């Protein structure tokens, strides 16, 4: 909850970054970086991108990564380093002529990561419009944090490896996450500050799972496929809750087929100043 408040306070700064400014003096550069796949050992991948549009998919080629980035060379420098089992990819401030007034909205990063390589993936976005498809990646751990962004995260294919935990920290954002079941995560946590968050619980759940959702100021939509048993334990303050298709027993809301469902997901929901809606998808 405190993170959400902090993000709310940081919102003006984030907006300052994304506010378009005169493009005079910008010098755009396009860089493509790639690395051959060597072995299939587990890696830790950290991807950071400050401002612009971002896309991530799994590459069909035998590559560890391929990154194409367009950036203002006066303000940023691309980075792609692989050492041991650590992969660091991102666009960093060059420290030369960086200023908040410089527009970075014309920048973009298209990233492809290896299929079949078990990886701990850490994605960090600032003011970014992101389209991420995690399908095809072998994720053992996932951490995604966004600032002021519009993010669509999709898990289009089941994760072939077991994921210990998936953490999503959403700042002031429109955040859509679909195919959560395909992540194969034992534990999922979503912390959202301000904005609209849609969480799609579709996909192939391999086992029962637990989710914790901390929602600050905003609207949360939980999309549940029919046949998946869900239980919501709610702790809210000044939050409207529309438990469509759920029945309250004790301190929890249960889906009607909770006992019969092949897979169950327990959601610990903590919300304040907003709305929470459960939508069933067929």
């Amino acid at each position, binding site marked *: 909850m405190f993170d959400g408040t902090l993000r709310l306070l940081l919102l003006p700064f984030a907006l300052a970054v994304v506010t378009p400014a005169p493009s005079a003096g910008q010098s*755009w550069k396009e860089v493509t970086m790639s690395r051959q796949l060597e072995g299939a050992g587990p890696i830790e991948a950290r991807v950071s991108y400050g401002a612009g549009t971002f896309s991530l998919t799994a590459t069909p080629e035998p590559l560890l990564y391929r990154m194409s980035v367009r950036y203002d060379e006066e303000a940023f420098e691309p980075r792609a380093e692989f050492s041991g089992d650590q992969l660091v990819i991102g666009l960093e401030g060059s420290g030369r002529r960086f200023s908040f007034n410089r527009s970075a909205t014309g920048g973009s990063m298209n990233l492809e990561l290896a299929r079949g390589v078990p990886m701990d993936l850490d994605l960090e976005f600032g003011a970014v419009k992101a389209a991420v498809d995690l399908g095809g990646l072998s994720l053992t751990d996932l951490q995604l944090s966004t600032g002021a962004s519009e993010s669509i995260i999709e898990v289009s294919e089941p994760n072939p490896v077991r994921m210990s935990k998936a953490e999503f920290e959403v700042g002031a954002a429109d955040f859509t996450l679909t195919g959560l079941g395909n992540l194969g995560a034992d534990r999922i946590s979503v912390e959202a500050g301000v904005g609209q968050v849609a969480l799609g619980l579709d996909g192939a759940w391999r086992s029962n799972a637990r989710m914790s959702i901390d929602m600050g100021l905003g609207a949360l939509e939980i999309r549940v496929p029919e046949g998946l048993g869900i239980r919501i334990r709610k702790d809210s303050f000044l939050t409207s809750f529309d438990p469509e298709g759920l029945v309250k027993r004790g301190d929890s809301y249960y889906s009607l087929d909770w006992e019969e469902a092949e897979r169950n997901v327990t959601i610990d929901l903590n919300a304040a100043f907003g709305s929470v809606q459960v939508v069933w998808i067929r």
Partner: protein
Amino acid sequence: MRRSAALNRSLLVALAALVLPVQGSAQLREVVSKQIAVGASDAELVLEFRDGERLSAALRNGSVVVDDRTLGSFETGDALDAAWRSLLGQAIALENGPLAQAVVDWAPPESLSGEAAEAASALDETLEGVLSAPAADAAQDVSVSIQDGSEGALARLLVGSMTRLSVIEEALEGLGSRLSIHIEEDFDVPAGEVVEGTVLVIDGAANVAGEIQGDLVVIDGDVTLEPGSVVSGELRLADARVVRNEGTVEGGVVDVLATERTDISELRDRIREEIRDEVRRDIRSEVRRAERSSDDGFSLFAPVRSVVRGIGGVIETVFVVLVLGLLGAAAAAFAGENLEVVAETARRAPGRAATVGLAGTFLAIPVWILGAIALVVTIVGIPVAIAWLPLFPAAVAVAAIFGYLAVAKNAGEWLADSGYEWTDWIRPSNAVHTIAAGLIGLSLAFGVAHLVSILPFFGFLSGLLTFIGVVVTLAAFQVGFGAVILTRGGRRREYWSTDPDETWAAAMDLDSDLNASAEAGAAPGGADANRGGHDV
């Protein structure tokens, strides 16, 4: 049979590729990573090869630069610039072999002349030179042989653990290319015979009585060097032992895994050291904890310490009662009627007051925050918000204390009515008396708890009394705070009875103190009149 031979050949090729990676001839170097950067004034290609070497070739600000070495100059936008950018555009979609081939195949435009042509030619030659594999590698004589009957063993080896293959690779590092491999079988060199090239024995015994003109590598096996035997190169051992060494090893005996063993030994030492440090830290903290607990435990000074602590606690309780008593006297003097109204509400509806008090306690902080937000949002209210932030908590604290004093007053009146001899000093008509008596009564559990704590073996009783004191205090605060809220700080009567019977009953219940009755009769809503819950 043919199938087995084909499989055998495939396995041999695979093993050769594994153990002799460099010797597998290749025309172009393997590219493991690439970077293509295209900007307004530069176009750069950076390649990293399997062996860790890097190549950087760029047309940058009018100069043709390879690995920070300037080869010549060009004009931005000329034919060389365009051809180079075209190559890079093509290279974006290529990796490794095709990428290296494309770079090698690249040729500068023929239309160039002068300095640009020279620079382009130098660039082209440099790229071809760097990307081509060393000729010596291709020319090496690679000969791998295997003994009959080892096909299954070879397959087992190849599908076995990567660790074993890496040991083989390490054991063969830097040795000649002519190699004879023996897996799961003994290898003998009878006296008078000469074997040329490197001999690799895996899971077998090497018995040498003759001569090996090369190196002998034994992995997971035994070596016997008979008298007069000669190994002209090195004898390399990996998880192997020399049973008898009566021959000559001209290149010396090398333990391939010695470094690894040293590393493991160092790692073991480091772990041991870390565990020792950890244990030391734990022991130190345990000792500190034990020392601390011994302060609280039994010792010669323990009785004195408990007396000091107990008396200190009693003094502390008395001090708190005195301070609250002074506040009570002030409240009776300056807001006596409000205090009376609050006390009456607390007396007549303690449950309701406690509920409201509990709700008020829980809502105090949210109301404080939301109030501040609401004031700030209205902009105009910002000055009020500045006052709101400190004053609201102060007001809540004052209300809670005021309510507690009102409850204390009720408690004092109850004590006065109780008929105990030791309560004779309490004058029910005197609000200060009743408040003081009530405060003493409400704090009695704490005081007794401190006194009991002086005695040995009465810790449980002391704790129980403290617990009772806490419960009583919290209850008094909740009831009092709720009564303050209900009566708006004693400005609104919750129970103003007009029933004459109740009034009469209350009158009958009046204290025998005539003076006090007279005062109460003179002032409607006075102390005694209200004790029965009525205004006379």
